């Protein structure tokens, strides 16, 4: 099979999970760009990618680096989150009503908690699938999800009250 065909199959397999995870972590615009950067990196380093045990997990980390760089570059244009960091949630999503409710609540979570809870409870991924994408253990995902859900409930109640 030609190299390009192999890569195209790889993209078809990995891209949905990778994009979903990064978009869940960083928002629509930044997350998709990060997924694209990660896949570009994969094509440039294909000989390395084929040796990886968990390529989607590795590419998620590549995407995290790319997203953080992008966020750093644009930090001045983003509103600060409560802990002083630039918001990781893309402002372009704010046209959706649900985003207005969920996103402020998600901002109180750590990055890992946020992605875990959105993947598991939002996208319906299993703990194992989520662990693979995040390149962490199933137990870690379980704990992040449990903690995130508890905090989210509290945060969303506060939001609703306002």
């Amino acid at each position: 099979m030609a190299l390009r065909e192999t890569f195209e199959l790889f993209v078809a397999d990995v891209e949905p999970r990778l994009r979903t995870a990064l978009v869940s972590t960083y928002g629509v615009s930044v997350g998709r760009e990060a997924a694209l950067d990660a896949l570009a990196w994969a094509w440039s380093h294909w000989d390395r990618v084929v040796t990886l045990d968990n390529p989607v997990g590795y590419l998620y980390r590549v995407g995290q680096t790319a997203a953080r760089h992008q966020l750093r570059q644009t930090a001045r244009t983003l509103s600060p989150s409560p802990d002083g960091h630039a918001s990781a949630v893309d402002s372009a999503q704010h046209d959706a009503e649900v985003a207005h409710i969920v996103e402020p609540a998600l901002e109180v979570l750590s990055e890992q908690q946020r992605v875990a809870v959105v993947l598991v409870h939002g996208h319906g991924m299993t703990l194992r699938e989520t662990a693979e994408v995040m390149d962490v253990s199933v137990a870690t995902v379980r704990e992040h999800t449990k903690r995130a859900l508890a905090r989210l409930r509290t945060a969303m109640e506060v939001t609703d009250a306002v």
Partner: protein
Amino acid sequence: MLSDTERSLRDYAEHLRTSTRPIDAAEVYTRLGAGHAEPTSRARRRPVPPWVRWSAVAATVTVIAGAGAVLIRGDESPGSITTPTGSSGVESSPTMAASTTPDPSVVASAPTPAPTTAATPAVDPEPPVSIADVHEAQRTALRRLPGFSATATPGNDRGRGPVRYTLLADGSFYADTGGGTFGSYDPSTKSSLGAYRDADGELSYQEIVGQSDNSLPLSILGGFDPTRLAGDGTTMQDVAVRELDVEGRPSWEITVADTYPRFSRTPDTVVGDDITQTTVQVVDQETGLIVRSEISSTDPAQPPQSTTLTDIEIADEMPPGFPDVIPADAVVDRSGDPAAARASTLEDLPSFFARPVPAPVGLLNGQVMAVTSSSISIGQMDMFGEHERPEDGAAVVERRAEFVVREGFVATTVSVSAQAVRAGGEPWPGMATIDGYQCPDLDLDGVCDPPDTQPGADSFAVTDGALAGVEAIISASPTGAMAYAGVQLGPFQIFVMGGDLAATQEILNTFESITGP
């Protein structure tokens, strides 16, 4: 049945799904541009091992040193040890960088950057050595080394002249750079002193109190730390080792080529371009010291750097002038890190932490340790993320005691830290506040739970002392030369870094709980 929160998350996920266009391979090719139509062929590389995740921590382990007596000069016959000459001034032009012919016998199969180190081929080729062999031999040699004096000569690119300095295994550092200028670090006071000439030629002085090691003056005046393991802190993806004779002294040359993707655009680059940074280090086999360090990059924004160490003399004491003095009437710049370390003793630890503290009492031998108390932000939790500057008023303050167990220049750093939550403050998400300190409490049972195990990391149970029964998460460098161990005991995080696995386990077995005077 879904709760309201879960239903909102479902809706939100659906919103994300419908707002995001899928990415196909064609878009990937477009992103990379015409220059990346096909991936370039290169040697197969190993996946990044879990240890790399700890490399940022391990890379901070500083193995330090100082001045004195017997040694090894470039113009001596190989292996000769001479009594010290007493020379402390700056030597004439370095002799290590004589013209040489590269030895073609590259041991590793990784790509071989163009040799840049001045050296001559070994007359009698030794059996092939690996980077693990080099690390083992380096540590053996460095354990025996009490200290040394040497002349560090930067490459032309650094725009400075040679500097003669002395480094002892306890971390003491001193360089008399002439004309009233000098730089020093005194581990007994955790202080650096510096006298230098500013742009107007006037003498200026600086005193920094609260440095846990000598890395600042050593890197400024010496150019690099010659007592580190060659090629450590890398992913070991592309490592080549070859044997050389440098001025008659058996040596190894370690070349590490580290390739990573570019994530920022410049006018002549694109995102996704590879950047390859090549580090070439030459290790003197007898002393274990790195005697030449070169760093170059394919990124035009990163200029090459090189420093050569010559005229090395073994030393076991500092020169008489150490640590030098700043004139009483001088204007001194004492600006520095507001969260700086300060010297402390074992007896002070319980009051510093305001509770009993676990520490390897038997190993300290009265050593002065560094303690810090600094506000930290949540970003510092993420080893892959951006390390934020401490924020004034942050709710969490990290208290840390750090000390080094030394055997010659082979050092194992032990740190004991805990994160106090300020009165009225909130712990970080996912953490609980127990007895004033924050800690993971995954079961919400009021007891600190051990941290998550990193994928691929190993663990063992500590058998003796205050940590007996506690599970330690361990990982090792790719060559096995250095181990990392992390333990959670109540609110305390205990890290042991830099020693081999056996030494690390031994240290963890020697902890005792200190309850104060």
